[in-house]
């Protein structure tokens, strides 16, 4: 059966049924592509944990109580779980304690295959303005084929208008990207830092100045955006969210070498004699032979290096958190002191904001630094420095002027 080379028609894409443009139901697409569909469904049931990742929805604020102080006043201090497979996106966004009456429809932007059609029909502005509970009625499918592919051609496309806009703002047009670039950029539909702009809660990616942490900080400073006010330090804060794409693409070893997200998270697998991209997207450390083994001969060696890197980043991140907690507490104490110089307290708060958004860029990113080890450590080192400077400034506020 497998013996000879298979004839071309059996190997390629021979569609059985024609798919409607932006079809929200992945089962329909699955009729043509059973392997991709069945592996997509497997993301529902992944359970294994790795040292710093995996698919268990571990409650992070219990695992690391510093986070409660660090996020004081923000919904993330109430509920912050590790992410799991794409099939769970809808369940998880509906169940999180971070929701409130004011949650906008925007929160569905990265959770459902219904979006492309809804955005096409009602426009993103209208979608984002609709309250979350209201939008729920029209959202029935978790992440699926329509989030990443054009129907029938199966080309990778950008489906989230916010990404299209953000790239345009940088003078980039994704239609000119190579296929290998698309294997990364398609993940940037969702795995990126975002904020809700203005009253209409429009989804925007803060990339106008570029995508490094310094560029993003500059963007928020310029437009005056504030996610929340820290209830202990009083600083105007930014919450970073999953900047996987931004960290990875900041000249990391793998990015510069032309490696894509899909190379590691959707490696080619074989079913019979056919090779296809597994759509069971998960931690590559769970199956390093298929994932890393395609490029690295000595898989034990690279997995071991990955562990060393993650441990180095984790140790450093914990030191940064200790510094942040110290800064927050010192600012709070100084601010209460009637003799404190208010200008200096304000400077200390600005330093707290700068420190924490840097730390969060690495903490909210999902690979414990592996996606870009040296950049992660550079950023954490400067976050620690800024946090300690915030603490020093808060103490200075109590010194009599000379």
């Amino acid at each position: 059966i497998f013996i000879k080379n298979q004839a071309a028609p059996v190997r390629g894409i021979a569609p059985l049924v024609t798919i409607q443009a932006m079809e929200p139901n992945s089962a329909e697409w699955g009729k043509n592509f059973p392997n991709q569909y069945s592996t997509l469904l497997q993301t529902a049931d992944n359970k294994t944990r790795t040292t710093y990742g995996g698919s268990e929805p571990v409650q992070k604020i219990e695992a690391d109580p510093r986070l409660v102080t660090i996020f004081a006043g923000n919904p993330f201090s109430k509920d912050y779980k590790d992410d799991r497979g794409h099939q769970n996106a809808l369940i998880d966004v509906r169940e999180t304690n971070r929701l409130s009456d004011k949650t906008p429809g925007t929160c569905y932007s990265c959770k459902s295959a219904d979006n492309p059609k809804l955005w096409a029909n009602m426009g993103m502005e209208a979608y984002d303005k609709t309250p979350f509970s209201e939008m729920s009625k029209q959202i029935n499918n978790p992440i699926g084929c329509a989030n990443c592919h054009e129907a029938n051609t199966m080309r990778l496309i950008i489906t989230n208008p916010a990404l299209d806009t953000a790239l345009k703002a940088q003078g980039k047009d994704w239609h000119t990207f190579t296929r290998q670039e698309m294997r990364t950029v398609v993940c940037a539909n969702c795995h990126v830092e975002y904020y809700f702009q203005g009253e209409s809660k429009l989804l925007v990616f803060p990339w106008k100045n570029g995508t490094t942490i310094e560029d993003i900080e500059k963007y928020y400073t310029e437009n005056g955006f504030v996610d929340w006010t820290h209830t202990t330090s009083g600083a105007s804060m930014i919450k970073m969210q999953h900047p996987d794409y931004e960290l990875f693409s900041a000249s990391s070893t793998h990015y510069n070498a032309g490696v894509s997200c899909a190379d590691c998270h959707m490696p080619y697998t074989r079913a019979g004699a056919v090779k296809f991209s597994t759509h069971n997207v998960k931690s590559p450390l769970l199956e390093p032979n298929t994932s890393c083994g395609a490029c690295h001969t000595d898989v034990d060696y690279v997995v071991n290096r990955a562990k060393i890197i993650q441990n180095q980043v984790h140790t450093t991140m914990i030191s940064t958190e200790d510094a942040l907690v110290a800064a927050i507490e010192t600012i709070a104490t100084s601010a209460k002191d009637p003799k404190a110089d208010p200008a200096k307290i304000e400077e200390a708060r600005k330093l707290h904001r700068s420190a924490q958004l840097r730390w969060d860029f690495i903490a909210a990113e999902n690979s414990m630094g592996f996606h870009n080890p040296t950049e992660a450590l550079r950023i954490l080192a400067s976050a620690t420095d800024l946090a300690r400077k915030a603490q020093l400034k808060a103490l200075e506020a109590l010194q009599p002027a000379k």
Partner: protein
Amino acid sequence: MKPLVFLGIGCLIVAILTGLYVSDFTVYLGDDPTTCNNCHVMDAVYEGWFHAGHKNAATCNDCHTPHDFIPKYFTKAKSGFNHVTAFTFGHIPEPLRAKPETDEIIQANCVRCHTETVSMVADGQADSGRFCFDCHRTVAHGERGISILPYQDKRR
């Protein structure tokens, strides 16, 4: 009784011959690289070899089989057996990886062709514990990840 035994032996012979026929047995006796590429699981290594430095210098067997007559055909028979059984029964490792014996064979072949070049450095004063292709990682099959993964274009 007897006819049954003959029938059994006959079937066995037919089965073996069929096996040899469908697995394209005779091609394993030659040195043509397209033989190896017969199995499309080998597409990527073939493509890699085709685009890398040695295409005009060495075929698969120049590197992958020992160059004394008997070991050569022994290796061919052994790995040929591995290949066919693996392929027929679907135990195809993911990804393909050279076995330690294969590494030793390749190393000997590098040295066989490049004796003069390496005469000063491969003097065996102590076991260096590594292979030529630990440094020359791309000479045979091109860049990994570009060659070993099929159907991919490079970004730059």
